């Protein structure tokens, strides 16, 4: 994968709003944002109600994903352009799902909603409906998904990349600072995880930094190209953003997103936790 196959610019998007076989999909952290205006023709996926299992703590399974995309009118051979608020966090999260379930052609809109709005590009409030399809998903590709036991086993052996803010990494905050801080889990990070906040991979307008800047960022942070990598954050959406950078833009292999992330790890009984600004010992 590379920037050319995984990313489209706002200019490209604006010229291809009506292109056949191209479906724009908005995925926001603030799930009401779509209704205040969206890119013309874009449908909405709600990361909570559409993309999570309603009962178990897990995301939608293969048949749930098939039912969702069929009902929303996305075909297997459509080019899906994902975008959203908050610097594409949840759009990147959805991108990871599309890859996990084997969608052929999916891309992120560089800069997401923020760049689109700051550029004063048009948003509309029209309701969008698409004819239903018969979407068929692949079996989940767990080569891009990490589970808790392999995360614990990765301490001191694989690259662990904590992409939360420095204060969350150190244990001074338990959640990003636009959310309340009271949580059940303990603060801190997985021992030996390096801290590379997701935000260092993005420019202020939400676009991704250049490949050279990104390579330098992870190189200087101590990421070892020769090892497998697991990225995590609090609930797995910011680490989808960093997973996208490492695997889809920079073309690293063997990068996994740990979607259980800190809300799972920080609640486990008996696992090691490091506090403070240093990675800590295995």
């Amino acid at each position: 994968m590379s920037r050319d196959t995984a990313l489209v610019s706002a200019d490209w998007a604006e010229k291809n709003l009506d292109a056949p076989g191209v479906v724009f999909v908005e995925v926001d952290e603030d799930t009401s944002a779509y209704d205040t205006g969206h890119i013309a023709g874009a449908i909405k996926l709600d990361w909570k109600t559409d993309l999570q299992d309603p009962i178990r703590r897990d995301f939608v399974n293969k048949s749930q994903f098939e039912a969702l995309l069929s009902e929303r009118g996305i075909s297997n051979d459509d080019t899906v352009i994902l975008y959203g608020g908050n610097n594409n966090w949840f759009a990147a999260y959805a991108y990871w799902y599309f890859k996990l379930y084997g969608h052929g052609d999916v891309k992120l809109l560089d800069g997401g909603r923020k760049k689109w709005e700051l550029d004063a590009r048009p948003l509309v409030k029209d309701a969008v409906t698409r004819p239903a399809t018969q979407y068929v998903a692949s079996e989940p590709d767990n080569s891009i998904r990490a589970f808790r036991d392999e995360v614990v086993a990765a301490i001191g052996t694989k690259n662990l990349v904590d992409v939360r803010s420095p204060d969350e990494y150190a244990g001074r905050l338990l959640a990003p600072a636009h959310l309340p801080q009271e949580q059940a889990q303990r603060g801190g990070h997985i021992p030996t995880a390096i801290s590379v906040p997701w935000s260092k991979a993005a420019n202020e307008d939400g676009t991704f930094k250049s490949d050279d800047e990104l390579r330098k960022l992870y190189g200087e942070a101590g990421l070892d190209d020769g090892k497998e990598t697991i990225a995590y954050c609090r609930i797995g959406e910011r680490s989808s953003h960093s997973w996208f950078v490492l695997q889809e833009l920079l073309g690293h292999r063997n990068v996994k997103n740990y979607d259980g992330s800190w809300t799972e790890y920080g609640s486990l009984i008996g696992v090691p936790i490091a506090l403070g600004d240093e990675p800590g010992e295995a």
Partner: protein
Amino acid sequence: MTAPTAAGCAAPDQAAPLPAGIDLEKETVITGVVHSGQGEAVPGAYVRLLDSTGEFTAEVVTSPAGQFRFFAAPGTWTLRALSRHGNGDVAVTAGRGITEVTLTVAD
């Protein structure tokens, strides 16, 4: 929704109540309004909370009345706003409870 009043003499903001269950003995809330150079509230501005080293910590979009809110920790922070009307920065020292800030953007 009530319009925000001028900086420094704002009544407690009724337009964006804190979520139920927020304990102000524990939470460090930084809240305020983004104004344009002409003193008008700026809805849809992107407000970024940067830590004492300038590192990004969080980002929100202002409400129709230009309001924003963060749950931070005691310490020194920078707020930076991006908008179609221009950008702006302000430094904030916050402790537990609510700290109110006015942030002005200009071309």
